[in-house]
């Protein structure tokens, strides 16, 4: 069973990722201080998608912002579950189409 991780744990994963790449982690007595990490296989889907947001835009977002975004992502994923419950088959096409283009026929 996957344990639910807190945002601080998730923040830890992102912090370690940035520390590793930039070498800017805090140092104590010459040793690098490493935040606890969250193994990727333990991340719930919403947390994984939040990690994407944090990795790209984390410098603009405080903890409260991340909570709000996480909640929104959970809602998006719940919507996706609702589509699966409808029962889509291979033949069910999306409500938009692609067509070949030919300039002298347009």
């Amino acid at each position, binding site marked *: 069973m996957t344990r639910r991780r807190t945002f601080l744990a998730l923040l830890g994963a992102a912090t370690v990722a940035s520390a590793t790449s930039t070498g800017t982690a805090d140092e104590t007595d010459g040793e690098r201080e490493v935040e606890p990490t969250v193994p990727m296989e333990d991340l719930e889907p919403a947390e994984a998608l939040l990690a994407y947001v944090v990795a790209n835009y984390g410098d603009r977002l405080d903890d409260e912002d991340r909570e709000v975004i996480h909640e929104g992502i959970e809602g998006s994923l719940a919507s*996706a579950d609702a589509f699966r419950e409808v029962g889509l088959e291979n033949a069910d096409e*999306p409500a938009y189409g692609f067509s070949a283009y030919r300039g002298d026929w347009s």
Partner: protein
Amino acid sequence: MIPDEVLVEPVDELGRRLRDGEFTVRELTEAYLDRLERVGPELNAVVTVTDERALAAADRLDEELEAGEDRGPLHGIPYGVKDLVATEDAPTTWGAEPYRDQEFDEDAAVVRRLDEAGGVLLGKLAMVELAGGFGYDSADATFSGPGRNPWDVEAWAGGSSSGSASAVAAGLVGFAIGTETWGSLNTPAAFSGISAVRPTYDLVSRDGVMALSWTMDKVGPMCRTVGGCRRVLEAIAEPRPADRPGRGPPKGKPGAPRADGRKNGFTIAVPEDAGEGEQEGVRENFERSLETLSEFATLERVSLPDLPYAAMAGTIIDAEAAAAFETLIESGEVHELDDEIHQLGSYRASTVLAKDYVNANRVRTKAQRRLDELLTEYDALVSPARNSVANPIEESLAEFFGQFETPPVNAAANVTGLPGVTIPNGFGERDLPTAVEFVGRAWEEPTVLALACEYERRTEHVDHAALVEGLEERTMHADD
């Protein structure tokens, strides 16, 4: 100066007075410009007034009338456009701080069509920033200030076409153009006591109109009467081939016998759950509307196909809006938007998985077919336009509207591109307007409009002249 009470008359009545010589196009335009200046700021309804363009057009249209040239019902009628409709000689701000100085080189297609029809562009009307596409929680989600309701300035005018709605209700314009991705015509029309038409998807060109969600955005008229909406829609709709739906007379006529044996000229579907979860005033007015409709139509209770309409709409809008505004998000300028929830919603929208967007559109195909199958038997479906009256302007939208169940009809109609006509049907809590919405099959605007016009003929729920009389006193209170 033309009295304010004249400025709230329907489009056809303004046109009649023009042709009878009671006033000129210039005089009518000057009167609206004056009222926009006096009352517009109190409602936060206006972004930019295009007075030079308006007066030049007015003079030209007066000369045409004198020469016997008449462009039709909209000749000389002044109007405003939601500020996401491009105009060549005024900024197009999208209601959003990052775009306050944005300019375009040419008019949107809808403005070009209205110019051809003889309309007089008065200016750009206020709106919720970026049409609220990422989700917002405040009436103040715009740089122009919260859209105030002319019936009570401490209530919201609705959004995202806030300024278009309040300007029409308060007689600041002859009519207005708004847009709807999900609710942005129907909501402000319902809250502000006016009529609006959400046309079938792509019946009105989106060329020159801000894209929030390419497959969900629609451009439509907002007027004090359904009759006015019909006039404007005739002018702005793209021509349809003669052999396609939407051409020709409406299917039903009041009182006419039907080949299928039903008693009255129209047959209207009423969702089984309509009347549940609403404010009491909304429910009472809806029941009364059904009584009026039963005078000239057969009503039948139906079940909407059980599909996740809101989930579809949300996923599709998120994915398309995240793409449409990717530059805004990447640059960080999204944090210049006024509403924090709106800012953060852009990040949520950026995480929609491609397969989930595709699946939303696959379910959308099912929704289109099942709804069309249902509506084949009816001239329209009717439901309350909103389940409550407008919220107090300072109150969180989520907290206020979360008290009421949202009817699925608006989500269903928007995600499937179906037309809708919103029309006032009385007043509810806090003496604020309520409304019904008629939804029809794709391109069946003639039938839905005929039905709505018949309903309008039998009811007189909104006295816009009384609103004008009381407005100045109410707006003075807003300054206290």
